[in-house]
């Protein structure tokens, strides 16, 4: 499958990328690893007239500590997040989640910013960022703004990003000793989650239980009022309306959410 024709520019800095976005507007798309965008272009769900390649912009990549946060550049690849000693020490849930994305080849190309900007409700990293209470740094024509993960995901494949803006970095609270768990239910290797759950510090987030990744608010409330994990997890599907497909109907997804949330709250991975 061949993408429709497009023009291609290599950005040499974030500012250069922004100027190209300003010039081409909604006809332009940013390209980094291309592992969300190129598959959509191949089936022509996306037909940008201009691709702005930010994959070579050094300032958009890398992992550093900044006070009580970790800052991860948007074009940092999943393999680099998963393999980073700093991330493993400061945000082990994120390191684990990054290692669950796709397969090794995909993790050699796909980037943290790309996955979040793509905002697939079934994906690993959007729900992980919600559970971690992270935030997203967005650079645009008028400067940098930081959007909490809770406000970033607007709908299926929709985010708070404007066409003239660039997801430049991800901010994660440092918490090496905070208890966490992660559950991803799939039928085959390298599939998206049929349902996924990430738990961190009394917070829970769900993948593929609605049009966006969701905070498990009812679970969190139960935990705050002292309920044990198994009891709190019974609320995992409260207020959700998951879709159905050939893997699972809505009732089964709700059942999975409850079971997987209990396991995640118990600190299990799988």
């Amino acid at each position, binding site marked *: 499958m061949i993408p429709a024709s497009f*023009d291609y520019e290599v950005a040499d800095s974030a500012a250069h990328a922004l100027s190209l976005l300003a010039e081409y507007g909604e006809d332009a798309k940013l*390209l980094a690893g*291309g592992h969300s965008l*190129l*598959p959509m272009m191949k089936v022509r769900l996306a037909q940008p007239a201009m691709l702005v*390649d930010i994959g070579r912009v050094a300032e958009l990549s890398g992992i550093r500590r900044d006070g009580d946060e970790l800052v991860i550049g948007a074009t940092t690849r999943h393999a680099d997040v998963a393999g980073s000693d700093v991330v493993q020490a400061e945000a082990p849930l994120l390191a684990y989640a990054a290692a669950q994305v796709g397969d*090794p*080849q995909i993790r050699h190309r796909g980037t943290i910013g790309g996955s979040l900007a793509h905002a697939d409700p079934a994906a690993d990293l959007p729900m992980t960022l919600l559970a971690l209470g992270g935030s997203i740094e967005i650079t645009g024509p008028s400067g940098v703004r930081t959007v909490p993960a809770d406000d970033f995901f607007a709908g299926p494949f929709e985010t708070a990003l404007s066409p003239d803006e660039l997801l430049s970095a991800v901010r994660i609270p440092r918490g090496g000793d905070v208890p966490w768990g992660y559950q991803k239910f799939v039928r085959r290797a*390298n599939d998206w989650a049929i349902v996924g759950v990430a738990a961190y510090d009394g917070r829970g987030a769900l993948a593929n239980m609605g049009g966006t990744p969701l905070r498990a608010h009812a679970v969190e409330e139960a935990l705050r009022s002292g309920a044990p994990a198994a009891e709190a997890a019974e609320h995992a599907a409260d207020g959700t309306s998951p879709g159905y497909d050939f893997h699972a109907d809505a009732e089964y997804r709700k059942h999975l959410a409850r079971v997987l949330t209990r396991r995640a709250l118990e600190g299990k991975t799988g």
Partner: protein
Amino acid sequence: MEIKLTVNETTRSDEVEPRLLLIHYLREVCGLRAANVGCDTTSCGACTVLLDGESVKSCTVLAVQANGRSVTTAEGLVADDGTMSVVQQAFRENHGLQCGFCTPGMVMAATSLLAENPDPTEQEVREGLEGNFCRCTGYHNIVRAVLAAAGKIADGQANAEVNA
């Protein structure tokens, strides 16, 4: 646009359309037919090649993204005198293939895996190859081949140290 890159240790430059996928560049422009188009949707791994030494699915990389970088295909693992790489030999010796369609991708994924983890457990080999499908389901011998290659690489290094 013009791209300049290294393919199997040979520097080349070619004029390509930005939308040309790396797999089509390798097969149709370079004439290297080892990497196959299987699913064409980043799932099956038949198109796996190395980009700067790391496994990637070349159906989901643009040729222009490889500009200035180094690409290795299964052809590039063979020495000038025809000697196959340790991984390739291990696939042959362990019958790590049935129809052979997935084999070039499997070999490249295994080569990348062993570069990152030279002494994998069987479980790590299975997880390391999760991005490659064998529709003949010949996975057991493929896993045996990769474990055998890891052992041979370790033996080779031990011998090199003894002889040094």
